[in-house]
């Protein structure tokens, strides 16, 4: 078991003058799941991106089975026996499933300059069937499938040729429970075949459960490699943060009575093909959770509440009788929304932090009616960026420079500045490290206590259980169960209602 597969030797990578990876050395063995952990920006992805040819190596070596490799792109990496499943969507739109699977390796199907599409589709379908993804059709356009299924296509693409090393970079946060189970199954298969998995995840229980060995990086520097059987979650947090993580993670109260005052009533809301006949009430000071599989429709519920759904029927009504049918009226009546698709739907990427924070509040940032005041905008942005402790140079910095956690802080700063009373938070901690997660949980707890109401939609069952007064479980576009806050609540009771 302990035969070395990959030696990482004195690896360095700088971006400009930022040292992303500094002189990192460690070994990865054959037939193991080797987890890489560390906070956002600790250099995990930079390291694996160099291994898979996405970035070039500044100095140092990767020695795979005794032979040095320096791939220049992903296809070369594949040929060396290294593949990667990335965090975000890694399939190309406009191509078929089969074309995606064999991207860069089409030569196998080319004779006399002509591609044999049938043979390619046949082989791709064979692979899909073998993996148990037979419902995905190799000849169909990849666009016909949802995020989840496309991830499955990527799993096939990255593993069908029995690579020596498969990098799984933060893939699980994008998957529902079902998709994760599918991925775990494949991970176990790859390991049992004697190959190696480099597993990057922020979900520490998952890391402990799935991996054999864990290497921790912090600020681009190698910290330690430990056996997962010899460490617990707190030990990992200590390694990552470099000090004891103290204080409450989730909220700790139980048995508090939620107010009877209803702030939002959702009545018979349907969105064609997404959700049907969803009704519920949100109370003042309540954190209402929505859980379910990714395609259960729970994400659409958030959009529907915020007036962002296309073709919605039914009604969303505030306490004062106002109907919410579009985004501007939702914002005007003190509602806020953060999307699961943070980069596209939450932050305006190529705009400054300041403008992002001020955008919904411009009405109140004027000197004369209709005339914006630069000073007021600046003060406003600084105040709320500071309140959320956004890590930045100043508010003129572009959002695209920030890490995922900081982007989410900018979005939250925007709505705190707007002083919204009803917040719809879809996957608020997706892909965010534990430190920022803790900040967000504490913020939610504070808001709840000050009488704000929160709808929290999440694929992470633990955070729903830890944070919500009440959890509604969605299944096939409808509410399939309701669970109240209780210390006895566990993941299994949620999963039972999800599938």
């Amino acid at each position, binding site marked *: 078991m302990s035969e070395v597969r990959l030696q990482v030797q004195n690896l360095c990578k700088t971006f400009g003058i930022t040292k992303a990876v500094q002189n990192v050395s460690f070994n990865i063995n054959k037939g193991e799941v080797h987890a890489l952990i560390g906070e956002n920006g600790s250099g995990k992805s930079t390291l694996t991106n160099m291994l898979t040819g996405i970035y070039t190596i500044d100095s140092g070596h990767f020695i795979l089975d005794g032979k040095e490799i320096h791939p220049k792109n992903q296809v070369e990496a594949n040929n060396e026996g290294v593949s990667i499943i990335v965090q975000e969507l890694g399939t190309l739109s406009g191509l078929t499933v089969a074309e995606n699977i064999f991207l860069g390796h089409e030569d196998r199907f080319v004779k006399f300059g002509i591609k044999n599409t049938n043979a390619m589709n046949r082989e791709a379908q064979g692979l899909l069937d073998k993996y148990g993804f037979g419902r995905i059709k190799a000849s169909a356009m990849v666009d016909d499938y949802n995020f989840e299924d496309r991830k499955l296509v990527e799993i096939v693409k990255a593993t069908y040729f029995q690579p020596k090393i498969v990098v799984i970079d933060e893939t699980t946060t994008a998957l529902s429970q079902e998709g994760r189970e599918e991925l775990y199954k494949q991970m176990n298969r790859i390991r049992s075949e004697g190959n190696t998995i480099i597993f990057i995840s922020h979900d520490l229980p998952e890391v402990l459960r799935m991996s054999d060995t864990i290497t921790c990086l912090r600020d681009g520097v190698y910290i330690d490699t430990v056996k997962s059987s010899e460490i617990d979650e707190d030990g990992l947090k200590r390694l990552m943060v470099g000090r004891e993580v103290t204080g409450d993670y989730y909220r700790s109260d139980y048995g508090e009575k939620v107010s009877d005052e209803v702030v939002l009533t959702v009545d018979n809301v349907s969105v064609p093909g997404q959700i049907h006949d969803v009704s519920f009430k949100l109370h003042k000071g309540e954190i209402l959770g929505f859980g379910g599989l990714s395609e259960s429709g729970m994400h659409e519920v958030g959009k529907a509440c915020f007036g962002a759904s296309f073709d919605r029927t039914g009604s969303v009504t505030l306490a004062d009788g106002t109907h919410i049918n579009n985004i501007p009226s939702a914002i005007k009546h003190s509602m806020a929304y953060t999307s699961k698709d943070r980069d*596209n739907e939450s932050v305006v990427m*190529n705009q400054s932090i300041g403008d992002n924070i001020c955008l919904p509040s411009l009405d109140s940032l004027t000197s004369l009616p209709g005339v914006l005041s630069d000073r007021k905008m600046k003060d406003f942005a600084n105040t709320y960026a500071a309140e959320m402790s956004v890590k930045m140079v100043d508010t003129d910095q572009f959002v695209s420079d920030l890490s995922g956690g900081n982007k989410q802080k900018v979005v939250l700063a925007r709505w705190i500045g707007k002083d919204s009373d009803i917040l719809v938070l879809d996957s608020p901690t997706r892909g965010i490290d534990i430190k920022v997660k803790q900040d967000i949980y504490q913020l939610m707890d504070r808001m709840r206590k000050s009488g704000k109401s929160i709808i929290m939609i999440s694929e992470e069952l633990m955070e729903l259980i830890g944070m919500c007064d009440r959890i509604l479980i969605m299944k096939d576009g409808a509410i399939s169960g309701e669970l109240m806050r209780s210390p006895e609540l566990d993941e299994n009771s949620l999963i039972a209602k999800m599938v």
Partner: protein
Amino acid sequence: MAGNTNTLSKEEELKKRSHIALLRSLLPIIGLVVVFVVFNILTKGRMVQKFSMAMTQIYVTMIASTGVFFVMTMGGLDFSQGSILGMASIVVCLVSKTSIPLAIVAGIATGAAIGAINGFFYVNRKIKSFIVTICTMFLFRGIIKYLTSNAPVQGSAKLIMLNTDRMKLICMLVVVVIGFFAFRFTRFGMYLKAIGAGEKAAKFAGIRTDRMKFLVYVLAGAITGFAAFINSIKVGSVTASGGNQVETQILIALVLGGMPISGGAKARFSNIVIGSALYVVLSSGLNMVGLSTQAQQLVQGVVFLVFVAVFADRESLRVIK
């Protein structure tokens, strides 16, 4: 992006980046000065002497550029500007025989109407803006040719009497000052930049993006419709080639002024003013040194390409809507 770790060095890196940004933002002004000096040397000072003549070209370009600037900030393009100018000029000339104020209004209305057609197909039918505007460019060019097939459309004599530099300068200043104010000090400008920098997120921040996009095309048409009035008092009549290639002139002017071709938060209003001036100095300079039309186009093409390459915002590069 993983990897940006060391906060101290990150600040330095950002400082370095802001130096590059500063250099980029100064390039158009430096370009303007250099081009101006070079042509004056080449023409032995003739350019300064004939400065007012060169200036006559700037009015229409700068006014029409203001509308296109809004469109481009939002991430769109507009290739129909030349045809809008031609069509609106015909309308201005025809109506000028009745009343001059009415002619101005009619020109603006014509431009707005064509802009509304662009906006409708772009927003409601979800066709990419450069496809839509290329279609309307050809469509209205055809109508212009049809209307002018027998003889150029003549404006009334009163129209040409208005052709003074003061008149044109005032008109231009009115448009530019109002445009600047709206862009810099009202929500209008913020919303445009937000749409250009991330449309979906802008929508989720409460901006009525579809309505905004439609109205900006109408506005760009209306502004060029107003420019048609200036154009008409300058030339007095419209031929089949009236307004021809104005869309490329505007595009070149804006890009020379430092406008990022994909729009967004890096658009600056100064792009219009400096760009139009640079374009006019460049084209009249090339003319004065006696270059043939073909050679002039060649030089313009090269300069255009260089500036696009310099100002392309590669971080946010994507297909233009």
